[in-house]
């Protein structure tokens, strides 16, 4: 599957395309198939996303899992600071990255 991701222009936070908007949570991301480029062009022009990219991911029962570790770290947060990730209360969150 293909996901759209980028950073929020003002905050720099990692965001994921949900089909209608941008979410901080990769679980909300949708598969855009081969239709990502025009969405990215439109959203970047509207400044709703910065430095957007299309990435590969795998569908899992828990939601999309980016194929590359860099994007899994982007999705979660720094593995060395679990308290600063999006799932600070989940002791297994780091395992999802590795």
């Amino acid at each position, binding site marked *: 599957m293909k996901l759209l991701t980028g950073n929020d*222009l*003002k*905050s720099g936070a*990692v965001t994921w395309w949900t089909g209608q908007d941008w979410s901080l949570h990769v679980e909300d991301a949708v598969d855009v198939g081969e239709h990502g480029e025009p969405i990215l062009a439109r959203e970047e022009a509207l*400044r709703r996303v910065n430095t957007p990219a299309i990435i590969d991911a795998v569908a899992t029962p828990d939601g999309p899992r980016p194929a590359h570790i860099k994007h899994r*770290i982007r999705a979660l947060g720094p593995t060395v600071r679990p308290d600063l990730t999006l799932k600070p209360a989940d002791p297994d969150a780091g395992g999802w990255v590795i």
Partner: protein
Amino acid sequence: MYKYDRFDQEIVDARVDEFRDQTRRRIAGELSEDQFKPLRLKNGLYLQLHAYMLRVAVPYGMMSGRQLRMLGHIARTYSRDYGHFTTRQNMQFHWIKLEQAPDILAELATVEMHAIQTSGESIRNISSDHFAGAAADEIADPRPWAELIRQWTTFHPEFSYFPRKFKIALTASDNDRVAALSHDIALKLVPGPDGEIGFCVHVGGGMGRTPFIAKLVRPYLPPQHLLSYIAAIMRVWNRYGRRDNIHKARIKILVHDLGAEEFTRQVEEEWQLMLPTEPPFPQAELDRIAVQFAPPPFETGLADTIDPAAAADPAFARWLTHNVHAHRQPGYAIVTVSLKPPGGIPGDITADQLELLADLAERYAFDELRSTHAQNVVLPHVRKADLHALWQALDAAGLATANVDLVSDIIVCPGLDYCSLANARSIPVAQKIADRFADYDRQKDLGELKIKISGCINACGHHHVGHIGILGVDRKGTENYQLLLGGSGAEDAALAKITGPGFDEDGVVDAVERTIERYRQLRTEGERFLDTYRRVGFEPFKEAIYG
């Protein structure tokens, strides 16, 4: 310590206003990201994995308590309660919001700090010895010269659009504590034939994907020609540097391609052409600067000893052994505060710790602090009589780890946990190695052993010059780690050699341990790891690593 004059302050304030307007235009859509990126980079603002990151310049690593307190305030107000000391003596804050970046720069300007030229294709922060002005082994204080170069290179119109970034280091001791020979220009204060102190000039050092040790270009340069000679070096590079290929654009490539002899000939030729119209040396400005680096009012007649009752405390004694260094003034010592606690992230420091260090500097160190390229902090002038009280205050804040230059004092870049350029995480590797060698007696037995870890080929973790270096790479989407041996970033500078096939995260920690065990088997009395490696060569270690 240098204090801004009216011109310094006006320049920095104007830059804040300019960047505030650029940021406004970016958010309003008047600037594209392609247009804005070089502007924000010139103000130290990166876009990293999780948010923006702001790199704050710490010129030659020198800070006051007031400045450190401001860094603590920024960490608490705009980041997530911590900052990170970099491998070039700067401080960076992750988790920054673009819309708040101009406010941060405005706050920094109130304490004579900025983020100018901490990124982009510019002359970066001038590095210098973190013991400058205190070291027993320096021949002169390099800081007035570092400040002069800082002023001269800031916004210099001829050198604002270089082929690539450019780094200058300055030292004044035979003991290189700033990795000088890994810089584009390494300047060392040395006595000349008539006894006047001038500069020994090396050019073309660097790390990255193509590492080189800087080559000797001029054994002695009279001091009054410093700026024109640097200009001649940069003009030759500006003229012939490879702007067509970012990976070949650094001056080290030009020096290598031409050869040191031919490069030197071209620099000297350029310089001779410049000399007839060389501007008068700004001696008055150097004198104005130098006054501000006058030694603090040291007490005289102090006992040059440490209270034996206090030194009987084993933990304090360990700290004295590893973190306290000789000062040129009797009765005083230099203290290195390790930012490498067990389980910690090298170089990270909390807002509370920043504020505590500010208090301690004001109380015990004439309001001076230094950041080191090894990601620690130095209190340069501490009365020996105050060492125990200082240690107790540091210990209560988790800042008294006794491990400077030992195996757990690891230099490490942020790696893939934070950096958009990284290929692999580097911090977890450092943490596992430090944990493996956590036992103090084991560390002490190993002696000086410098491990340096980078999460990508850009080598911000200085892996090329580690006694043991580790480079994280991406192998088909999986983190993999190459091991290197035999480097040095000190006065005996050398590049490390890759041992062979890489390892996974746990595998490279095991390989480091096998390397160190082989050292223990081979060493002679008092021999450092690096000395043993140089004596016996690469093969015994390779055999230990791969069997």
